[in-house]
């Protein structure tokens, strides 16, 4: 059981978290945009999250908090 | 305290230490080398830091870092080196850092000569680097005055959070004169809560000259300008020598003023000419009022700016006199100091209406 939270307003939509997620459970929100005008990252299958924090470590904007 | 015979450069260095300066960053250049040399000897003895930098550029940026960290700090150089320091001085002004820069001016432009000159006047009094700013700029005429002004230079730098320049020349730096050194500063240096690494502060310190928003940058400039207005109102220093009822007013500063004082005495004896001297001690803020008041006396026929340059301060004299009396210029440059005879020749020419 793990949780990954995004401080969405800080996200610039670069997608590095998506690229580096070993479980491939992240994506850029297809429709929603944040105040900066980016499609923020989101988790589509939290059940599969192993809390490895790879996403957070590659995020250049320190958007992600991970719990396990 | 008894007088001691000291070289200008060494006396200035010692006066800085007595004023509580404990950090010196410099780079060798003639004719100011005795300042860093003296500092390298003395600083370790008083628990201070002397560091010879890899360049003048680096030295002034070390001064910037030390000033930003709250230290009483200085550097010294001579004309070509001062040009290199202008970058750091401009940044220090922008970040409102107190520091003292000594310039023992030599002939220019370029590598110029190593003999005394006053050809850095524009650079010293108009800011020197990029941006709208001024430095408080002292122009002592002898070693005692330089020594007496050192403490004041540091104090004003702290008070206004602005760099202060001591504008000497190769003569002032190299001459040996009897001088009475001041007592070492006893009171604690002023607290600098705005500086980096200081205790007892709620917010973190940011030492910075970048204001990316033009409106903010303008506001910052307006604040600096207000500060300069206060300095102009409060910090002008000038000496009037026999100006009352004079026929001719000579305006001269620093080493040049000393030669002019002798020339004025001889002018009276040999030419029957009453020459009064206005000697700016601060060249910024400039003593416009003193120059004007001396010039507009009914007795005064002419005003002369005498300089070791091709004519720089004469612009300020013209601003001060504002057309009320004829203003002319005499000077020699490149490291040549006008002699008493040179000056007498020029003054007699004025007397004869040439």
């Amino acid at each position, binding site marked *: 059981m793990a949780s990954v939270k995004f401080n969405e307003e800080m996200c610039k939509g670069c997608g590095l978290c998506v690229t580096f997620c070993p479980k491939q459970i992240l994506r850029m929100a297809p429709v929603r945009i944040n105040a900066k005008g980016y499609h923020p990252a989101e988790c589509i299958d939290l059940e599969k999250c192993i809390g490895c924090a790879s996403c957070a470590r590659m995020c250049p904007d320190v958007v992600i908090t991970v719990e396990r | 305290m008894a007088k001691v015979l000291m070289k200008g450069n060494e006396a200035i260095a010692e006066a800085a230490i007595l004023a509580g300066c404990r950090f010196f960053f410099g780079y060798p250049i003639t004719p100011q080398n005795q300042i860093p040399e003296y500092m390298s000897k003395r600083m370790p003895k008083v628990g201070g830091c002397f560091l010879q930098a890899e360049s003048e550029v680096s030295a002034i940026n070390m001064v910037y870092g030390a000033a930003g960290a709250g230290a009483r700090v200085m550097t010294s150089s001579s004309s070509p080196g001062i040009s290199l320091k202008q970058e*750091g001085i401009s940044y220090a002004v922008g970040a409102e850092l107190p520091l003292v820069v000594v310039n023992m001016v030599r002939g220019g432009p370029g590598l110029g000569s190593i003999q005394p000159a006053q050809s850095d006047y524009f650079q010293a009094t108009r800011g020197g680097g990029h941006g709208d700013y001024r430095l408080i700029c002292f122009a002592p005429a002898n070693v005692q005055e330089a020594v007496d002004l050192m403490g004041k230079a540091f104090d004003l730098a702290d008070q206004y959070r602005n760099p202060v320049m001591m504008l000497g020349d190769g003569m002032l730096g190299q001459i040996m004169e009897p001088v009475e050194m001041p007592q070492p500063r006893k009171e604690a240096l002023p607290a600098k809560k705005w500086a980096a690494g200081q205790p007892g502060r709620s917010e973190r310190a*940011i030492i*910075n000259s970048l204001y990316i928003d033009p409106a903010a940058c303008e506001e910052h400039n307006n604040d600096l300008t207000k500060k300069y207005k206060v300095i102009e109102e409060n910090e002008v220093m000038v000496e009037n020598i026999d100006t009352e009822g004079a026929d001719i007013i000579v305006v001269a500063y620093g080493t040049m003023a000393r030669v002019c004082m002798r020339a004025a005495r001889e002018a009276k004896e040999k030419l029957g000419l009453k020459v009064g001297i206005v000697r700016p001690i601060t060249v910024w803020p400039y003593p416009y009022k003193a120059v004007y008041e001396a010039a507009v006396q009914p007795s005064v026929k002419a005003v002369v700016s005498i300089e070791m340059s091709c004519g720089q301060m004469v612009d300020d004299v013209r601003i001060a006199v504002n057309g009320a009396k004829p203003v002319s210029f005499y000077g020699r440059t490149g490291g040549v100091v006008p002699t008493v005879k040179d000056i007498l020749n020029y003054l007699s020419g004025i007397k004869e209406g040439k």
Partner: protein
Amino acid sequence: MAVVFQKTSMLTDAPFHYCPGCTHGIIHRLVAEVLDELGVGETAIGVAPVGCAVFAYNYFNCDMMEAAHGRAPACATGAKRVHPDKVVFTYQGDGDLASIGAAEIVHAAARGEKITTIFVNNAIYGMTGGQMAPTSLPGQITTTSPYGRNTEVCGFPVNMSEMLSQLNGPAYIERVSVHDVKNVVRAKQAIKKAFQAQIDGKGFSMVEVLSTCPTNWGMTPQEALKWLEENMIPQFPLGVYKEV
């Protein structure tokens, strides 16, 4: 549940101004975390460069100074001499450190100045719009080398870590990269070692971090990481260059 990863308090709440996918943000985070973990964050003094990281003083939650272009090591020297008990660091890009500030970094290193330099090498001038840097690769297209860096005309990239490691003053020099998770973790270890060398009074320390510039390289963030790995690492091999 326990927190595995959260933003360190050594970073302020100000959002980074960096372009999407620029790895400056990762490097900022690593430095801030290390300062925090070493317990020196409260009293550290950082010096920001001129270049993309010019606003670093907005992000590191400690006393900060903004230096003139290339002069951060001189500025840090002044601060360190005043506060020898405090951790002082510079954060500089390749234009700032390896070009205009080459003299300042060489002599700070030669003096064994007890400061730590984080050198972010992305082989380009980012802030000014993608001009050729001292570390641009042979053949690399930039706005001032539009036909590719011609080594006949403008010479070769400068390998700062190798150069500085020849001096006696440095105590720790390592080159790392942030192109994947494993390397990000290694980069943090290197940064920690570098700061520890300063804390131990051993001398000058520097970590050169290979970084991306997706915007000026004209790539996606993902392509940029790949380009870094395939092109920059052969020119700038990773590893420890000096450890005293």
